[in-house]
């Protein structure tokens, strides 16, 4: 897998994963504990439940320059909160329609169930998504909407989308 990543092309996809705390995050931890090597392109944002995922998170990720998004939570009937994953699924079905309308290829989003015991499945989800997004190429449709700041610089440079974070950065006090 790694060889494929390194030799295929120079393009390194950037993938944001929204995962639930109880199943997929724990599954990803399990992949780590089992030392399962995988592509390093995925960054995880931990949420209590996939039911917490607002469609705006996904759009925001693409707007900020993600090339792909992974959504993963507990298997049906296994939700820690009984039904959050069902709400996530329904929301996502509606959202898929909207994505095409917004100029995002729905194939850029992986929707998956990974349980706390499925470290290997998480690795496969990560690697498969990275491979697929690599083939699809970078997501550039939103570049005009949101200028991507230079690497390493803080989000202060982003003038296109003001948000709460900037305010807090500007008045940042003594944080560690």
């Amino acid at each position, binding site marked *: 897998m790694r060889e494929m990543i390194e030799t295929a092309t120079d393009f390194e996809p950037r993938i944001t994963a929204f995962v639930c705390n109880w199943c997929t995050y724990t599954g990803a931890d399990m992949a780590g504990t089992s*030392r399962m090597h995988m592509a390093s392109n995925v960054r995880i944002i931990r949420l209590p439940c996939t*039911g917490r*995922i607002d469609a705006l998170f996904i759009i*925001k990720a693409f707007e900020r320059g993600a090339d792909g998004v992974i959504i993963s939570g507990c298997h049906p009937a296994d939700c820690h909160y009984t039904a959050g994953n069902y709400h996530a699924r329904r929301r996502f079905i509606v959202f898929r329609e909207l994505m095409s309308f917004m100029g995002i290829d729905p194939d850029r989003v992986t929707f998956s169930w990974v349980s706390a015991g499925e470290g290997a499945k998480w*690795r496969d989800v990560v690697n498969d998504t990275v491979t697929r997004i690599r083939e699809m190429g970078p997501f550039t449709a939103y570049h005009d909407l949101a200028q991507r700041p230079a690497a390493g610089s803080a989000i202060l440079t982003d003038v296109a989308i003001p*948000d709460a974070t900037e305010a807090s950065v500007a008045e940042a006090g003594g944080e560690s």
Partner: protein
Amino acid sequence: MFVCHCGENIARTVDCARVSETLADHPGVVVSLDYKYMCSDPGQNLVKQAIEEHGLTGVVVAACSPHMHEKTFRRAAARAGLNPFLCEMANIREQCSWIHDDKVEATDKAIEIVRTIVEKVKNNAPLETIHIPVTKRAIVIGGGIAGIQAALDIADGGADVILVEKEPSIGGHMSQLSETFPTLDCSQCILTPRMVEVYQHPRITLHTYSELESVEGFIGNFTVTIRKKARSVDESLCTGCGDCTAACPSRKIPNEFDANLSLRPAIYVPFPQAVPNIPVIDREHCTLFKGRAKGREKDLCGKCKESCLRNAVDYEQVDTLVKEHVGAIVIATGFVPYSVGRDQPDGLKGYAEFNYGEIPDVIDGLQFERLASASGPTGGEIRRPSDGKVPKRIVFVQCVGSRDPEKGISYCSKICCMYVAKHTMLYRHKVHDGEAIVFYMDIRAAGKGYEEFVRRAIEEDGAQYIRGRISRMYRDGDVIKVVGFDTLSGEPAIIDADMVVLATAVRPHKRVKQLARMLSTAYDQYGFISAAHPKLRPVETNTAGVFVAGACMSPSDIPDSIATASAAASKVLGMFSSDDLEREPTVAIVNERTCIGCYSCERVCPYGAIEHVDVCNRDGEICGHVARVVPGVCQGCGTCVATCPSKSVELLGFTDEQIFAEINALLTW
């Protein structure tokens, strides 16, 4: 910002020094250190010192998974005077150093992970652990063996208990049984002393002939309303002498306790050992009440009232509602046997081919229990319901309804293999020359002494077991033709039986779904209450403070029911052992100024945590409604947050601001 090497675990693939150096330049970061073992005492002291020295308003520890050490570092932060919820962990071990081997790549990723969490922490707010006071009283719903056991255990543990039973007496199905497997001891002999114990226990309040009307509140603070149905007999005056029952002229009502094998009067005590031993008037069948329902002005009867020397019979009694405050609820509503007839509720298919209900000598297992019981309609003699003859050949059919997806039930009812073996033994002990023939699919006898018990039925008491199913049964003169197939010999098996006993499936009580909805607990496709976790939390439900015991969860025999009841009781007592409950403060809150009162949140909330609140104008008039989250009920999934169309709900600890900060920080690479 503190980077942990985790010995070599992180440092092998992540350049920890580079991570801390890079993050030192990040806006808002005033301290950036790396250390070999952050979770060790010296490591935690580094965090504490830095908080005290620099007056930090947030801490990020880049180390292992938060599932591993978040609590450790939050405690350390709290000891240094920082609100623990301002401390977060960046997972650079499980999700970085352990899954990559290129040091540059892994270090770059680690920096990004840490930066994300730093941006999140900047948006963290101090949160206070929620304390919920606990009312140390419990309510147990259902007065069968599971409910009795749970009530006694909780009461013996020192808490007050309210036991609610919908029938006029407690005791449940166990009181109907003759002998119990695998010991063949008399069911009533072991049950009735427990029933009396419940009645006399100073900490148990018993409400029989009562049902749960409504439930409000949340863990530790429920308010339940109990409907005490009109008994038409004053419980405080009645002595249980039985004069009224003897006086009642309408005596042709099927006796439910005897599984309709005998008749009872309209004013009755379900069985002689009933607790409480107070009669009830069955208003549906009573001549007086039937007359009143038809609008007769003069009462047609009044014999029971005339006969009562204590003047306890009260025709004017009405249902009363009793409100009780409790901290915990135990559901123990038990089961009902599958009804074999043609008509089935809930889309199940009946066994019309068995002619149950049409041939009086085709009975179900519970009816056989009554026939075999010394307190039953025949005084314990096995006699056919049709003509009172002693049957010389009985066919027992297992798995009627159970394990039969065609008929709508796929599960195994668990108790039938054992009680059929018991029935054959009881029969052979009473009718020595009788033949007991059992049709079975498999014998499932996985319990202590169970397999030996079945072997005993076959080897010592001569029960004949035929592996196969029955296709039909019909009357042929004096006998019942049972047409089956022996799958081991591959031949049809047609037997002339004097009586047929069907081991019917165990089903949840019809009204348990309604109860489950009232309590916001989950139930499975068959209507059994679901446990919070099938293995790890078997007697808790997904609603905090609501526990479950006995056969309302899944088919259970008596030992299982008692085990789960005691388990539920110990969970309740554990909850009652402290004066208040601590809850993580990661719960949803509604911004009532922007809430439009659409209650989309209420529809998606799995816990019923949303309450309606009136909004008043300056004159005190109600001018609108908004939603409010009850923190004691909310479990913090955040589904309401993502659903709210006016963006008026936030999940503390995972606010939109925090998550957007993370997304923004992530994608600067």
